[in-house]
Structures are given as C-alpha cells and as structure tokens.
C-alpha cells in the first residue's frame, strides 16, 4: 500500500513536472480560492482585533445616547448621517441627575461640526466639538497644558477653546498657544488648553479636534438647539444594563413617550458592548460573503482539475492498459488518479496558503503604516481548513476521471493509438 502510494505520488509529480505550464494553469483556480480563504480569514481576524482594541481603548463602560429610533442590532439612523433633532442639552442635564440615573460617574453631551480655524496667517480645517465639562471624565483625555473650560463657561457662551494635539501643531507649530486668540467663523476664541497626544480611539482621531463649550457651539457656531450625541460612563460594568434601562425611562418621560416597548422611542441607547456586537455582525456577514466567493472560485478550480484529469486519462490510455496488463486492478488505477488530482490540489493549496499569507502580511504592514494597530495573524485553523478543502476538491473532482480510467479494459487501452 505504502509503496503504491509512493509510486502514485511519484507518477503524479513527474506527470505534473512534464507539463509545468498546464499544471500551473490547472492549479490557478485552487491557488486563488485557497489564497482568498486564507486572506479573508486573516483580514477578518485583523479587523476584529483592531475593532476590539479600539473599543477597549475607549472603555467598555461607556454608554451612548443617539437621537432617533433604531431596530435591535441595527445601526441608529443618526449614524448614517441623517440629522435628527430630538435630543437636547436638557436631556443630558436630566440624565446626569443621580435621582434619574444613579450608576453613572459622569456624562458628556456633544454638538458636532467642522470649521476652519485661523491664527494669524495659518489656517486649519478641523473637527469642532461642542461638549460639556464631563468630557475629560467620560472620554478619558488628558491636558498637556492649560485647563479645560468650567461649568460656568459651559453655559454662558464663553469664547474659549481647547485644542487637540494635531490642531495645535498645525496652527501654532512650535509657538506658544495658551492665551492666544484664534478665529473660528468670525468668532474670536481664547486658547485655554491643549490636549495631550492620544491618537485613534474607536476610529476617531482624538488629536484632530478642537473642543469648546456646548452652548457656545450651539448658539454662536451652528445656531441649533439639539445635541448630536450623549455619552456617559458607567461606574461598574455590571451596572450597564441598569443604566441603559434608567436612561430609557428618563428620556421617555421627558419626551412624553408612554409606550415602554421602545417602538416609539425617538432616541437610541447603546452600550459599547452592543456596538461591538453590531460591528461583529456586520464584519461576519462580510466575511461569509467573501468566503462564499472563495468557495465559488474553488468549485471553478475543481472543474478545471476535472477537465485536465479527463484529458490526462485519455492521453495516458496506453499507460493505463500497460499497468492493467502488469496486474493493476481497478482500485490501483482509481487510487493512482485520485492521488494525482489530490496532489495537484494540495500543491495548489500550499501555494495559495503561502500567497494568501503574504498578501495578509502586506495588508498588515500597510495598515500599520497608516497608523492602525493591525495584527497579522494566520491561524492554524485556517491553514488546516484550506488544506482540507483543497484535498476535498481534489477528491471530489478527481473521482469521475479516476473512475473512468479504472473502467478501461486492458486490451482496448493497449490498442489505443
């Protein structure tokens, strides 16, 4: 048995090497299919770890309130860029009251926009965030110099601003920023603080923002009354569900919504964990879709294998006749051609694994170069899966040609010209 398998593998490899170009083209479908599987699984793992790291860096104790309703596990409509005006500053004040939501340590409300900042001749387009003083506690940022605005400044339309690391560098370079006045849409603001460098957190560049009191943002810059988002920090992770429930009750009461089912809510309350689940659902769906495309490629590759094996059987009819004359039985011939097709697909699979891993590695390098904390990881499971799948393709699509070969009558095969 071992000797005949060795012989079959030897025969297979010599036949493959004799037709290098043809063998490679035959394998190409398998190479692409397996390479795609390896790449997709590696990208999925990389993306998932990136998202996890981003969400964890934000803190899993964070809960968010967004305006507008949303179905369970679906992203809120406001996340799609639709402006909804149902959430207000007073909602945030109500949620901050311990009598309403006891298990939060602090809360921050946002009013978002973009604006051009000017200092002397320097211009810089930055994300502008009006927020409440709870920002530092909830988001966990630190000041590099100066101070944050006070509760008083939050409400009295003060023209003060705290710059993110990048904004400060772009506007002031090495110059001193504290106490300087910058222009934001014809308003003059005093720089009272500069944030320490923080980088990307939860896909948001915390260095490329300028923070100002929320009321100032609403009245002086945007001219609106609504807030775009409220975030709160839960005291203990196990209280997250309680906080979500308390927030819903408070907001429904304030918005005169009697329906407790949530169907008529004009807001959405989510925890970071729920958001993570949602992202995972989306990336999983994407992964399955791509895996299905890879599977199609493997099927096409398998048909290519079958085609070339049928040609090979015809080409080698005399050889089959000879082997039968020398005593090969049906099983010997069947296994010889099956081993050949499996050898082709396994070699194709190996090349695909190496190719897919190289591509995944390149993606990781590029992602890291772009500043994402992307982990390169090709799992043993995906390698074993790819090898098993290529073997199965070889077996499934090799059976018909091998069966055909095994059925040849020795005398007819020997006579074949």
């Amino acid at each position, binding site marked *: 048995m071992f*000797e*005949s398998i060795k*012989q079959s593998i*030897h*025969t297979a490899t*010599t*036949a493959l090497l*004799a037709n290098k170009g043809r063998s490679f083209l035959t394998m190409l479908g398998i190479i692409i299919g397996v390479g795609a599987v390896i790449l997709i699984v590696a990208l999925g793992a990389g993306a998932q770890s990136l998202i996890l790291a981003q969400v964890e860096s934000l803190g899993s104790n964070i809960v968010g309130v967004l305006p507008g309703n949303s179905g369970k596990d679906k992203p809120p409509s406001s996340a799609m860029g639709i402006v909804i005006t149902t959430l207000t500053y007073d909602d945030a004040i109500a949620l901050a009251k311990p009598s309403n939501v006891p298990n939060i340590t602090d809360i921050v409300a946002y009013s978002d926009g973009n604006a051009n900042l000017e200092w002397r001749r320097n211009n810089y387009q930055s994300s502008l965030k009006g927020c409440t003083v709870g920002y530092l506690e909830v988001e966990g940022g630190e000041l590099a110099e100066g101070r944050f605005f006070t509760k008083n400044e939050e409400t009295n339309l003060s023209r003060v601003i705290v710059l993110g690391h990048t904004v400060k560098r772009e506007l002031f370079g090495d110059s001193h920023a504290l106490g300087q006045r910058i222009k934001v849409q014809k308003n003059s603001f005093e720089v009272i603080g500069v944030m320490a460098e923080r980088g990307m957190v939860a896909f948001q560049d915390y260095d490329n923002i300028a923070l100002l009191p929320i009321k100032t943002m609403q009245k002086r810059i945007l001219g609106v009354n609504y807030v775009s988002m409220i975030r709160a920090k839960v005291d203990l992770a196990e209280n997250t569900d309680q906080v979500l429930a308390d927030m819903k009750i408070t907001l429904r009461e304030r918005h005169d919504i009697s329906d407790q089912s949530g169907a008529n809510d004009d807001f959405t309350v989510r925890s970071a964990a729920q958001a993570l689940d949602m992202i995972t659902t989306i990336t999983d769906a994407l992964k399955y879709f791509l895996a299905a495309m890879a599977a199609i490629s493997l099927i096409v590759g398998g048909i290519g294998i079958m085609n070339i094996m049928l040609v090979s059987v015809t080409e080698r009819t*005399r*050889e089959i006749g*000879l*082997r*039968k*004359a*020398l*005593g*090969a*039985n*049906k*099983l*010997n011939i069947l296994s010889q051609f099956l081993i050949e097709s499996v050898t082709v697909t396994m070699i194709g699979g190996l090349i695909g694994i190496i190719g897919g891993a190289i591509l995944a590695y390149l993606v990781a390098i590029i992602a890291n170069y772009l500043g994402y904390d992307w982990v390169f990881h090709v799992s043993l499971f995906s390698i074993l899966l790819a090898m098993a799948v290529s073997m199965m393709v070889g077996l499934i699509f090799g059976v018909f040609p091998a069966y055909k070969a095994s059925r040849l*009558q*020795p*005398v007819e095969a*020997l006579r074949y010209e």
Partner: protein
Amino acid sequence: MLIKVENLHKQFENEGLVTKVLHGLSFDIEEGEFVAIMGPSGSGKSTLMHILGLLDRASEGNYFFAKNNVNEFDDNNLAALRNQKIGFVFQAFNLLPRTTVLDNVKLPLTYSKDKNNLDERAKRVLEDVGLGHRLDYFTNQISGGEKQRVAIARALVNKPSVVFADEPTGNLDSKSGVQIMEILQKLNELGNTIILVTHETYTAEHAKRIIAMCDGLIESDKPVQNRKIAHDGDKLK
C-alpha cells in the same frame, strides 16, 4: 498442463457490425514449452494472445489456465493472475516515460502482494538481462534493444509461469533482435514457458513448436524441425 483451450471463439461487435475473429480453436500448452503462434496480419494471432494472456475474454469456449477456468474469474482476479503468473513483452516496449529503468521493472512488484526488497529483486533481473549498469537511466536515454531487455526484465520480475512476447523483435534492428531471441531461448532452457507471437517464419523457427494460424483457424500445429539457435553475430532476417 499450463494452458488448455477448448473450442475458443472470439467476435467483436462495433455499432451492430459483428466481426468473427477466432472460429473454434483447441490446443494445449505444457509447462516449459517454447511455442510460436505464427500467421499473417489479420489471422487472429494477436487476439488469441490477448485471450491467452488474460487481457481479453473469449466469446465462447473454455480456457483453463493452470487448471483454473478463467471464465469464472472477475476482472480483479484476472489482474492478480496476470500479475503473479504472466509476463508480457510488447512490440512497442510499452515502458513508462520519464521513469528510470529500475522503476519500470519494479512496476509489476508494486501491484503484487509481496512488496519486500523491491529494489533488490528488480536489480537482480536487470543484471540477468545485462542491464545492471543502466538502473538509473531514463527510458528515453537507452537504445531500442536495451528497452526491450528492460521489458523482458519487467516481464520476469514476478517469476511468472509464462512469458508472452508479441512481435518482440518487430521494432528492433537485426542485431538487437538476435539478442532478444537469445535471451528468450536461454529463459526457456532455464524452464520458463515462452509463447511468441510473430508473423515471420524465421523468428518463429527459434521456438520449439509452431502453431500456424490463418483466418481465425489453426492451419498447422507441429514441432520445429530445423530449430534456429540465436547467438551474437547472427542476424535475424
């Protein structure tokens, strides 16, 4: 008795067209004989050899090989019987391309039950046919005469009861042809049964008995009177 044939018929059917090739042959062949089956092309000698060599089945009649009625054997039994009891030498050598001389000779052993010392056994027969120095050559690197000697070594490697040689000198120059006939005669002297299929009277006369065929019937079956003995220097006509 090694081979016993009774009233053997063979016909081929192709798209409704029936061609009768053998019309009731009966004869015996004893162990140790050297028989030539001779006849012009179309006489049915190759068809007869295929049936005797268990590569094909008779349409009618009985064939006993080593006292077994082969009609009762299925394809896999026949394959095993061919492997153990029968060696073939073909006109076109039928060696595997891109494969070494040694691996070609080992081929029948890989299909047999006894898979011990494959290399040694194959080497030994190759040395017997004078090719001990060509073991690792590929089959496209050796001459026609050497190829046929490889084929003979392959036929002998399983120590068969009978060797079928189908026009073994047909593709060879006369000098190589003589060498092949010399080997076959020597094998016969050592006790091997040889059945030679040829259309040349001169080649057939190297055997001890000639079964002459014409149009699917045995024309004559008699011992050779002036038997030719092949030795180097002779040329096959």
